[in-house]
């Protein structure tokens, strides 16, 4: 062992109490920094997956839509199918689907069950970009099949109200009575919704939905659905809100197609039609969603997302294009940014305090060990040797606390995962606590304490190294 290292080591042993305290403070700071980061990452991943679950990498809508419309109130795109085809043609590897959505209300008029709302996501049961991921998330019942009663060939009971106002009585319960012989549309419902309303939502149950079939205006339809499956996305909020229905069913419900037959005008209310024959038009939809192959190297997912958005915008200049990042920012991104800044800030402040403590301890060591430093210099020790005595102490403190911090973080994650600790979430549901470790923060947790303690140690180290040997030796001399 070199002189510097052995002297550094004996100083560490001599000051083990104060150094242990400093090391523990840094280690716990880094551990909590790591854990909080990993937890935020996990939450962001949940949000991210959820956002992608209802949306995709890119969403194209009419220019009058904003981010909020992506959850069910987009305005109708007459040529959605063409746009989807165009994108798949122009960008090999990209997958585009036409999305049909609507807002629905259920539970109206039921005893002891207050009305609740959901977003109906129309999904192409063979060719949608998210068929596979949804299939994987089914926790009860099953996914859609071709022999499900997806289409009936006629419009459901459909009332168009020209002005805002109360719904006429005729809507309530009408679907049930007038469409008795029609088979209900199949739907897949989120598991959280089933927990919120166990008496009306479970696999096999039928219920009435009142659908606002247009985004701007007030077109209402009343339909009957049958729950064929439950899915769990990992985020109860989403499960409580998003229901899936075959896209063609929703086209029929929203009258997206050629309707043959007539409707009746009800003076003072609006128009009314139902049971008119309809041939759905697959070209029509509310949005086009695009799934993009992942980048070869994913260093900058946000940059990539923006790049994809620009590419797509270039071929649909008149439409609105939302990137996955736009949605994420809307959902939780800005919150994440703030929390991340706070995390770094509190970690930085603690580290600076520890740095100050290291400097203070070493300053006092230098004063007490002045004669020893002088002796070493008299015995031929170069300034560098003295410098390194203190530098090694800093290096030791920094690396030990960094490693310890990571170990503590790993331990906590293991314990949390082992016990499967969950958090109380809406409506009695549980949100599992998880961690997604980002290698960058791990690197920071080891590099930053080392850099800091080396920087803190180098100030007294320099002072000790520069000490004139004569001055160091005169200290403690009984008489001059």
């Amino acid at each position, binding site marked *: 062992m070199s002189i510097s290292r052995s002297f550094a080591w004996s100083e560490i042993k001599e000051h083990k109490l104060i150094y242990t305290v400093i090391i523990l403070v840094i280690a716990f700071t880094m551990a909590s920094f790591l854990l909080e980061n990993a937890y935020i990452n996990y939450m962001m991943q949940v949000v991210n997956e959820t956002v992608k679950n209802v949306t995709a990498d890119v969403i194209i809508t009419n220019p009058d839509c904003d981010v909020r419309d992506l959850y069910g109130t987009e305005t109708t795109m007459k040529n959605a199918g063409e746009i989807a085809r165009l994108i798949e043609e122009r960008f090999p590897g990209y997958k585009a689907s036409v999305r049909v959505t609507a807002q629905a209300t259920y539970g109206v008029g039921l005893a002891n069950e207050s009305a609740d709302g959901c977003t109906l996501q129309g999904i192409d049961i063979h060719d949608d970009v998210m068929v596979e991921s949804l299939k994987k998330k089914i926790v009860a019942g099953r996914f859609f099949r071709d022999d499900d009663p997806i289409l009936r060939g006629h419009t459901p009971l459909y009332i168009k109200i020209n002005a805002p106002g109360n719904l006429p009585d005729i809507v309530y319960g009408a679907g049930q009575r007038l469409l008795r012989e029609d088979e209900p549309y199949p739907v897949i419902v989120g598991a959280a919704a089933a927990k919120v309303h166990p008496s009306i939502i479970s696999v096999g149950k039928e219920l009435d939905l009142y659908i606002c079939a247009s985004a701007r205006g007030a077109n209402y339809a009343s339909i009957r659905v049958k729950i064929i499956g439950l899915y769990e996305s990992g985020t109860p909020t989403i499960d409580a809100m998003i229901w899936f229905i075959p896209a063609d069913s929703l086209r029929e419900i929203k009258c997206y197609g050629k309707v043959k037959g007539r409707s009746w005008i009800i003076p003072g209310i609006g128009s009314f039609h139902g049971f008119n024959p309809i041939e759905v038009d697959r070209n029509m939809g509310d949005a086009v969603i695009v799934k993009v192959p992942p980048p070869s190297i994913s260093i900058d997912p946000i940059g990539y997302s923006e790049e994809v958005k620009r590419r797509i915008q270039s071929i649909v200049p008149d439409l609105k294009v939302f990137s996955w990042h736009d949605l994420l920012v809307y959902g939780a991104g800005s919150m994440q940014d703030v929390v991340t800044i706070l995390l770094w800030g509190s970690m930085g402040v603690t580290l600076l305090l520890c740095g100050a403590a290291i400097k203070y301890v070493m300053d006092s060591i230098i004063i007490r060990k002045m004669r020893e430093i002088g*002796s070493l210099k008299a015995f*031929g020790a170069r*300034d560098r040797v003295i410098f390194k005595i203190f530098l090694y102490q800093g290096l030791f403190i920094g690396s030990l606390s960094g490693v310890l911090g990571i170990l503590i973080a790993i331990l906590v994650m293991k314990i949390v995962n082992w016990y499967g600790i969950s958090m109380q979430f809406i409506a009695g549901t549980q949100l599992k606590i998880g961690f997604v470790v980002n290698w960058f923060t791990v690197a920071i947790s080891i590099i930053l304490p080392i850099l800091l303690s080396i920087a803190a140690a180098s100030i007294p180290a320099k002072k000790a190294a520069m000490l004139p040997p004569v001055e160091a030796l005169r200290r403690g*001399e009984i008489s001059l």
Partner: protein
Amino acid sequence: MKKEPIIELSHVTKIYGEYEKSVIALNDVSLKIFPKEFIAVTGPSGSGKSTLLHCMGLLDRPTEGKIFIEGRDVSRISGKDIAVLRGKKIGFVFQSHNLIPRLTVIENVILPGLIAGRKRVELEKKAIELLREVGIEHRAKHRGAHLSGGEQQRVAIARALINDPIIVLADEPTGALDTESSKEIMDLLEEMNKNRGVTVVFVSHDPEIARYGRRRIELVDGSVTYDGVNR
């Protein structure tokens, strides 16, 4: 005996501080030290004895004048090379607080050797030999802190010799010891000078102790007032 000097001071002046507060610690000192000499530096307190030793020992640079070590002009040597030169050519014995208390006696002795980058095994062999010579071999594994003042100075002498220096500089080596131990230490230094042929320069303000020197250099207010055979 009078051949090439191992250390030569030529018109060395050392001034501490600046302007009206300045202290002339050494005033135009010129002297030569030859191999195998045994020299006492005497003079009243504050006369510049320690400063002289520090300059000779390359711990301090003179304000004016030149110092030659084996004919080499020290002022031309860079700071880090001076440290290396000091470690190899010069052995120090200080007044007190000499040993590093947490290290064992033998570790203390080999320390200058380790700093010079020599091998531990070889150093330990040599250290045992030196400890035997200073009569403290039996305490080799004890911690420095557990030794008496006289024993500590014996160890310090062994340590000063570990790198086979050309000269040993001892600043008040008996300053913290009683008369009995002081005599023992001086006898030991004399013995080392005779048997090993190592040049010794020691400082003492005590005439009894100073009598050991064969040559005596007397300083008063930084100037050499006597340099010759000690009577």
